[in-house]
């Protein structure tokens, strides 16, 4: 089986926000909830670099480890998904996640957050694929149709690549060999415990 991963090539990302927009539109993510975001380091200065960040679908996911109701599961493709019917909105996964991936529709008094929402790698949730429940809770299920996450598919500069870890590692390695410099597989050490 494939081991699905995300990789953002900071040398290519031009901070166009297309990945964010594609994700929001594809899954009809509510206002205030951002499954993916672009962070710019040294904004406006020479050497500015942008990285598109979402759930990295960690090998040993911290969110799954701290969840009091054990609502996370990892698919055969290594995608970390969760069951919104079990989620109680306690916020622990947000505090444990290194990437700030878990999101909640509310932030109000008495710890009311609503059900956690995060990137699904466009793989839906535990409900039957393409069912109405899956669509409203988790968004579309592209992986089931044999497609890759829309954010990466839409990326104009192919900075954000998604897919089997071995394949995208190869693509990235070839790029680095061609253009020189050192590989900077941001977030891989935290998420997968390894570089390219």
């Amino acid at each position, binding site marked *: 089986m494939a081991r699905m991963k995300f990789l953002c090539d900071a040398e290519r990302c031009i901070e166009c*926000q297309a990945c*964010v927009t594609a994700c929001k539109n594809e899954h009809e993510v509510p*206002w*205030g*909830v*951002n499954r993916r*975001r*672009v*962070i*710019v*380091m*040294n*904004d406006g200065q020479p*050497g500015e*670099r942008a*990285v598109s*960040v979402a759930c990295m679908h960690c090998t040993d996911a*911290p969110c799954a*480890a*701290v*969840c*009091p*109701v*054990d*609502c996370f599961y990892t698919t055969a493709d290594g995608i970390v998904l969760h*069951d919104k*019917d*079990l*989620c*109680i*909105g*306690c*916020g*622990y996964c*947000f*505090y*444990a*996640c*290194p*990437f*700030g991936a*878990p*999101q*909640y529709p*509310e*932030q*109000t*008094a*008495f*710890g*009311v*957050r609503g059900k956690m929402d995060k990137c699904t790698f466009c793989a839906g949730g535990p409900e039957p694929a393409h069912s109405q429940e899956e669509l409203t809770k988790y968004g579309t299920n592209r992986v089931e149709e044999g497609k890759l996450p829309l954010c990466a598919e839409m990326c104009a500069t192919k900075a954000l690549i998604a897919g089997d870890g071995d394949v995208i590692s190869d693509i990235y390695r070839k790029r680095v060999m061609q253009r020189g410099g050192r590989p*900077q597989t*941001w*977030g891989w050490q*935290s998420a997968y415990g390894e570089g390219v």
Partner: protein
Amino acid sequence: MSKHQEATTAKRRWRSMLWTVLAVFFLAAALPSASYLFAQTSSGELPQRQFSEESETNPRSDMWRSARRGEGGFTNQSGPYVTNELINNSGENYRQIRMGPLTTVGGWFLVVVFLAITAFYLLMGQKKIDGGRSGQTVVRWQTYERFLHWLVALGFVILAVTGLSLLFGRTVLIPVFGHVGFSAWAEVAYSTHNLVGPVFAVALVVMILLFIRHNVPNKTDLQWFKQGGGIIGNKHPSAGKMNGGEKVWFWVGVFALGLTAAVTGFIALFPNWGFQTREIMSLVLILHATAGILWIGLFLGHAYIGTLGTEGALEGMTRGRVDVAWAKQHHDLWYQDVLASGEKPVSEEELKARKHQTGPSGSAAGQQGS
């Protein structure tokens, strides 16, 4: 040399050794830092050192290094849970502590405390009133004090059960109820914990203010501790209204752990206040759970001593009156104060008679509820 001389020499040697060790510690800290003094006062005179190009850091590496350290960048996205950090390492600490010592050490701590108390009860049995009850009682707790105590107690039990469910439920309750069943309970436990918490905190603060005057430590408590509180054996060390053990429960349990749990609870409960970063939140959640577990451990002792462990103790908090024999045995100094204040012990028959006298007219309002 006489024995006296030997003792003084030994004492002198011991003292000089102590001073030497202290001097070593002090100098070890003071001497190296003295160079700061020199560097700072003379910095104007020395030329600024020029570093060669080789030892300068690569700006690109610096950027990734600061990103890994959790320094923020710029992001267009907005929302209550959107962060501008590329990576946040505090979460890993949170995970390690919560899933490590907090659940393992904390859980076994509670189990061991419970088992120890059970074993103590089975071995030693209940602490009886020496010579049996006298049949005469005096007032120990007023109605409003008892009301407050039981309000806090009820809140405590609810918070303990729901809090423990959220921390240990995954290990203990999911195997029993399954994921769906436990999730339904966790939802209830989570909301209950969050709604009861603030009420409990207010009641707790009022109770602390009300009971603080009974819990001022004094010399009698020292004597009480020296005799081990008379827990084992047949000694009955003197005590005022509160004995040394009760004061420890008050200051360590109710005051320190209780207020820690209350303050951290409020911070965790209102993420909308806005200052709670992930670092603050995870620290606060760890503190809250730690204080809770320790408090529950102490509470088990408090509850045991107040109910099963001591004959005649519980009625002080339920009826408000305690037997004179119990008072003499456990709180002799307080009993003397009670007598000195002019209150006279009353027998059960007298109490009944008093109720009859005032019953139909005087306390009619009080009887409506029952």
